[in-house]
């Protein structure tokens, strides 16, 4: 459990970081953020990056502000920053209700939201949040920047659209309109474990009926995503048990479930049914 040899770079500015990343990326250079995923896999020697570009001292990446109706989360912002609402509207409350499901307190004080997104664990709560809310992910490289919509960002198990010389500099979330309802639920074997399935739902109520429903499911497929079938089962319905069950059933049927030696596809569908319904129930509590 001692990592293989590596060189650690400690840039102070974003330009410097991007220049080093451009140089070392071809030699398996990687970004080091909170280290809560990367360091364990290095200790196991499952990852052997020759270079680490440590961004923990890069100026400006700790940005956490609302600008033009969007919440901007820089690459150095830790999970723990969301323990209290970061903005007074529904988005701040949503993020605060989700964050407590991530790992344990010490890990949340170190791990970063952008690190989670870049790591792309299928069960990651932040990946689910970004997918459900259609976050915009700002990728920076030496001499360039592009904005990747969440739906194009997650490409499968631990795999994203980021190029190896790209740094995920920011995640941006549209603020949620006042009155937006939301609910989150996940199932894991122990508190703080990666979820075996998780769901996040948001919607508004217009004339007593559900509108603009978003239902995201994580941990059940290779990447978290919105489930249109579940959203369709909600839109136009009165919020309540019947609609919630219909949406849960639709989500359960729509997924292409991950399977492993302990977990059958059928069981994963059971879990999705449960977490989607419970997320929706949480939205009215």
């Amino acid at each position: 459990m001692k990592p293989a040899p590596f060189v650690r770079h400690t840039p102070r500015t974003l330009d410097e970081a991007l220049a080093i990343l451009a140089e070392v990326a071809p030699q398996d250079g990687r970004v080091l953020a909170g280290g809560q995923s990367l360091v364990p896999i290095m200790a196991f020697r499952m990852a052997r990056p020759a270079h680490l570009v440590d961004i923990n001292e890069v100026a400006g990446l700790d940005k956490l502000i609302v600008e033009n109706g969007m919440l901007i989360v820089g690459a150095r912002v830790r999970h723990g920053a969301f323990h209290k609402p970061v903005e007074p509207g529904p988005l701040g409350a949503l993020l605060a209700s989700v964050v407590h499901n991530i790992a344990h307190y010490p890990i949340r004080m170190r791990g970063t939201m952008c690190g989670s997104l870049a790591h792309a664990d299928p069960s990651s709560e932040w990946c689910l949040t970004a997918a459900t809310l259609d976050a915009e992910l700002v990728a920076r490289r030496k001499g360039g920047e592009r904005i990747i919509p969440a739906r194009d960002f997650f490409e499968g198990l631990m795999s994203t659209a980021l190029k190896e010389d790209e740094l995920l500099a920011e995640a941006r979330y549209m603020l949620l309109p006042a009155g937006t309802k939301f609910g989150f639920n996940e199932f894991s074997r122990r508190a703080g474990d990666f979820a075996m399935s998780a769901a996040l739902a948001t919607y508004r109520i217009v004339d007593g009926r559900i509108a603009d429903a978003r239902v995201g499911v994580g941990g059940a497929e290779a990447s978290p995503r919105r489930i249109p079938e579940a959203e369709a089962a909600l839109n136009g319905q009165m919020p309540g048990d019947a609609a919630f069950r219909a949406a849960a059933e639709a989500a359960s049927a729509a997924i292409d479930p991950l399977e492993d030696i302990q977990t059958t596809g059928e069981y994963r569908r059971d879990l999705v049914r449960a977490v989607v319904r419970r997320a929706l129930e949480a939205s009215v509590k």
Partner: protein
Amino acid sequence: MASRIIGQSRKRLEDPPLLTGQGRFASDISFPDQLAMRVVRSGYAHGRIVSVDTSEACALPGVFAVWTADDVADLPPIDVRLTNIKGLAPYRQYVLARDKVRYVGEPVAVVFASDAYTAEDAADLVVIDIEELPAVLDAAGETGDFAPGLPTEVIVIEKGYGDADAAFKTAQHVVSLTLSVGRHSGVPLETRGAIARYDAKHDMLEMYGAAKVPHWNRDQIAIMLGRERKSINLYEGHTGGGFGVRGELYPEDVIACYAALKLGRPVKWIEDRRENLVACNHSREQTHRIRAAIDAEGHILAVEDEFFHDQGAYVRTHGATVADLAAAMLPGPYRIPAYRAVGHIRLTNKTPGGTYRAPGRYESTFARERLLDAIAAKAGISPVEARRRNLLQKADMPYDLRVDTLGTKVVYDSGDYGGLVRKAIDATGWQTLRDAVATRRKAGETVGVGLAMFVEKSGLGPYDDVRIELSPSGAIEVITGAASIGQGVETVIAQICAETLGAAFDTIRVTHGQTDRIERGLGAFASRVTVMTGEATRRAAEALRARLLAIAAPLMQTDATQLTVSDGWIARTDGSGPSMAIADVARSIDATHGASSEASFESSHMVYPYGVHVALVQVDRETGGVTVERYLVAYDIGRAVNPMLVEGQITGGIAQGIGGALLEEFLYDERGEPLSVTFADYLMPTAHEIPPMDIVISEDAPSPLNPLGLKGSGEAGVNAAGAAIAAAIDDALGMPGLITRLPVTPQRLKAALAAR
């Protein structure tokens, strides 16, 4: 009469260094010039070793040596202790694999380098070519060959008494179950470690990082290395958890010692977590096919159990202990007129097994208590009633079970089993609890209560020695052959010494785990220390007290019978006249050395504490998740020297029991690749998963086998946890007999529900 210290919850003497960050665990020990040792392990479950190429590893700067089986060809396999069962020898493990590998994680080569990083880099460069062979993974399935002419069925243990066949022929009902317990083990937070060095000037080999059984390991290393016993010393430091697995003699310990000798430099080996989960003893995996013959009222007429014990790839130091204990302790607290157990000890291509806290009993209690629940269902009576009808009575004590284990006859020394059930039921507020459950069920919740009982064993002999030295300054040292794996040995022994001798508790220093301080010692296992070392301490203290009083009497111008000792002062029983410090008496005996005494306690019988577990669980029908909401253990310990420590033992045990019931499991794929190699896959319960606990310590049945009435408490919290939780889940779902396999994972519970 000396002031009462035994029976008080004294704070632990051992805590100050631990609580102030001054602990000294294995990895805290280093010597100048030491080499870091790294083991290269098999990546295959079963295969023939074609070649091991160490050339690239040897060439790496900083690498001092790389060894393979050829370099340790002189070393015999590691022997078995505590057993008189024959036929185990051919299945023992050599310290490095010879021509075959038999589990993923088996040591094949070992690197010695300047530091741990280089050693691990070099280990990656060792190329092991293995021709894969089919793996045997199911101990209850088809057997294979360990080696030509040696089947993977090592031995079959048979125990029993009475005419079971006749009982089954005439019984009103027969209840049959197939039950299994998953592979899990003690997983101490401190991994193993061995730091060895050789002092040529004194021709002395030393090993640090020892635990549990330092004397036996010292003797064994001496035999394996062909050295004089007196030329090796083992030293125990702080130990971050034992649980049966830590401190046994493993290949790595022997290699570190041998290397220190051969390479002439200190050698330090610290196990990492991934190694720990594939290299340190596994335990528990058993399948039981059990049946009971009963009459119409649910009285047991006979019990028969055939079980398969998955020993993993080799027979290790515990030999046949786990299966032997499972067979011997299965009858538990019940009157079973006829009994037969047939236990198959089978090898598989998995990490070798050993004992884990309540070895054989966690498993056989699960089997027996599931059987009792099935009997209740069959006879149409409540699970509590089924137990009451079959319990042994107080008047049956002492009760000769007519089986033996660990070289002793199983004779329950004392007990009031029915009385303890009543205490447990009172403590839980049984009726209120049942009512609350009923109300919650009506509201749609899936909650249930389960109860399970057990008899434990403790205080395994055959002996323990203690020497007490009273220095002229008044300081007292109690030197024992016991070991401390964190359970509070120092505190308990000091309490017994202080009260018996009449000394102040905090003047006592207890020495353990140091082979150079006492000739022999058996160490810490089988909940034995408080009983065996405790009684030896009491004897030595009593002898010393008598001696001090005899010397003091003429000085104090009275008769020894008129004197008493308390808090280190000798005074007249009537309170008149002056008093005298025991230190002064010690000085008058020998101004330089003071006074001392020695005593041994020999015992050929174990003592038998017993307990009741009650679990309240909630089941999530949709996900299969199970939450333990509350847990109670009532335990009769005979006499609790320090109730706080007894509670501590039980509390930790419950946590481990819940782990084995719901979470912890070493899983393998179909090729024998281990899947539980990190703490993300091997799920230990955390504080979140552990419910509020109630612990009832009862002292109704002191042991008649030692004057203080002592019994042990190390294994009480874990013993019946699997059984009680399984019963509670059945109860919650209203499906008696649903749970037949531990751990109850959500996936398995959902599948079991779907199959109904």
